[in-house]
């Protein structure tokens, strides 16, 4: 069985700082991590690998050369190999172009049974690449998955909605997007780290290797453009400070709220 896990290397957004004048990201000194939901995706694949024989888990990513480290970390966690799509031609890809490139890479891998993606990435928060890959490959998708059971050639998934959930069944092959509720990702083992850096567990592919026409990917292949970026504006309130002991503060607040007819 072949499982492909799409992972993205992202800046840790909890550490992100923005240049307020330029409205751009200060990337310097911001640690890069595997996108959290993608770790849940990888964990689910590794659990299947732990449970069944002859399961091969391939981690797939598109990004700059340093994204290789994310794939090595995935291998250290237990993936069998990593594939990095790295080419200037891919730069500036929006979700459509990204999903096109990843889908081509998956076709290039050949046989697959399940593709796992994280529900969304913390830098873009779009959650679009997974379903777009599924469409490019003409396979069914189940998104927002928080429970998964593999039964022979079929999966049964619990799919989260705002007001409940669906139980969805589908035959393989298919694409799953994983939420944090799906599992608790493992850490890379120390042995895994040393083994992952050995030999050539990571393959780097270019647009040419995949036989993708350059106009389909990168900025050229992206239907969307960023026309401007800026830091969010804030609305200032007319602040009234309530002083005194905690008791006086609490009662003072209650009085204000009652007078304003809020409570």
């Amino acid at each position, binding site marked *: 069985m072949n499982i492909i896990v799409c992972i993205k290397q992202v800046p840790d957004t909890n550490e992100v700082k923005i240049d307020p004048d330029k409205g751009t990201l200060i990337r310097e000194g911001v*640690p890069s991590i595997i996108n959290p939901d993608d770790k849940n995706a990888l964990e689910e694949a590794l659990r299947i690998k732990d449970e069944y024989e002859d399961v091969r888990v391939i981690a797939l990513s598109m990004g700059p050369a340093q994204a290789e*480290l994310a794939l*090595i*970390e995935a291998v*250290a966690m237990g993936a069998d190999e990593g594939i990095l799509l790295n080419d200037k031609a891919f730069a500036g890809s929006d979700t459509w172009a990204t999903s096109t490139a990843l889908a081509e890479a998956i076709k290039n891998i050949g046989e697959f049974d399940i593709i796992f993606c994280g529900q969304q990435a913390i830098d873009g928060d779009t959650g679009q690449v997974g379903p777009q890959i599924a469409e490019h490959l003409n396979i069914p998708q189940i998104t927002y998955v928080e429970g998964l059971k593999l039964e022979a050639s079929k999966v049964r998934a619990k799919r989260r909605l705002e007001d409940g959930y669906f139980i969805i069944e589908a035959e393989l092959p298919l694409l799953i997007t994983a939420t944090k509720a799906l599992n608790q990702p*493992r*850490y*890379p*083992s*120390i*042995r*895994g*780290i*040393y*083994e992952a*850096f050995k030999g050539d567990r990571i393959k780097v592919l270019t647009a040419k290797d995949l036989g993708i026409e350059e106009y389909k990917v990168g900025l050229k292949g992206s239907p969307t453009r960023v026309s401007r970026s800026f830091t969010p504006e804030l609305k200032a309130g007319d602040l009234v400070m309530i002083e005194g002991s905690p008791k006086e503060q609490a009662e003072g607040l209650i009085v204000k709220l009652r007078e304003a007819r809020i409570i």
Partner: protein
Amino acid sequence: MDFTLSKEQEMVRKVMKEFAEKEVKPIAADIDKRGRFPRENVEKMAKYNMLGIPFPVEYGGAGGDDMAYVIAVEEISKVCATTGVILSAHTSLACWPIFTYGTEEQKQNYLIPLARGEKLGAFALTEPNAGTDAAGIQTVAVLDGNNYILNGSKIFITNGGQADIYIVFAKTDKTKGTRGISAFIVEKDRPGFSIGKIEDKMGIRASSTAELIFRDCIIPKENLLGKEGKGFKIAMSTLDGGRIGIAAQALGIGEGALEETIKFIKERQQFGRPLAKFQGLQWMIADMATNLEAARLLVYRAAFNKMKGLPYNKEAAMAKLFAANTAMDVTTKCVQLHGGYGYTKDYPVERMMRDAKITEIYEGTSQVQQMVIAANVLK
């Protein structure tokens, strides 16, 4: 001179940091308060090969190196010095002597389960009347057919009562002083071996520090580690490496305290501005950061020498002496910078200050380190 870590070591740091933040830090205050040994985290460390970092894969280790091990102790100790010493004592003081002096059979039987973390290790040298003067131990081992019979007791044994395998030092020949000492591998379930008093300590409160009692304890002859009479040498060389682990622990404690303090003084306001804006306090921070950096270089240098097969006796002693002093100094100042809050258990710095003190005492007091250094320098 190259100060960069390898990619492997960098990733080990990242993973250890994440593990420390997510698994160790959340329970650190609680296990300190209760004095509860964090068995669950020992098991988690085992799962990720963190209990056998510098040993080869064929012996159950992670196939890593001494630098990665030091980084692991440092990162864990930043959030919990207790967990740091459990890791350090196990790796440096129990796994390492078996790896270095053990027979192939001993490695198969004891190192593999230890390095895999299936079993926890400890090192038993200190006795009521033999601390710094390790040659003065009174525990005896007498050969009787195919067995040694062990009698005596050990105190202040880190991981004591929690460990499965102990490296125990005993006199096999009372007439020969240090050359009459031998090392033994003792499993916890040997008849005649029992655990005595568990110490109630100032710091590293969740680590188990115990008395070991041997009453006609029967040890098979095959469990002699190294040759008879080589025990003192084994103990001293083991402690040389152990000191690097404790130095890394001290470094981590200091770094952890400084991180907490920097966060605090940026938030805490007095006289209408954050503490971090006061120049007098900035000077303290600058000195602490500088001393920690110096300690780090000494610790890494010692680990580097060990990794490269270079002498590290003096380097390890210097690293431990300086890192322990720095940890004590930094944590004391960090409590000071927290003011009244620092003296409460609402903030972790008081725990770090209590934890720091032991690094000046165990695996050779600071005075022992000075003896070792002087002996090297005055050679």
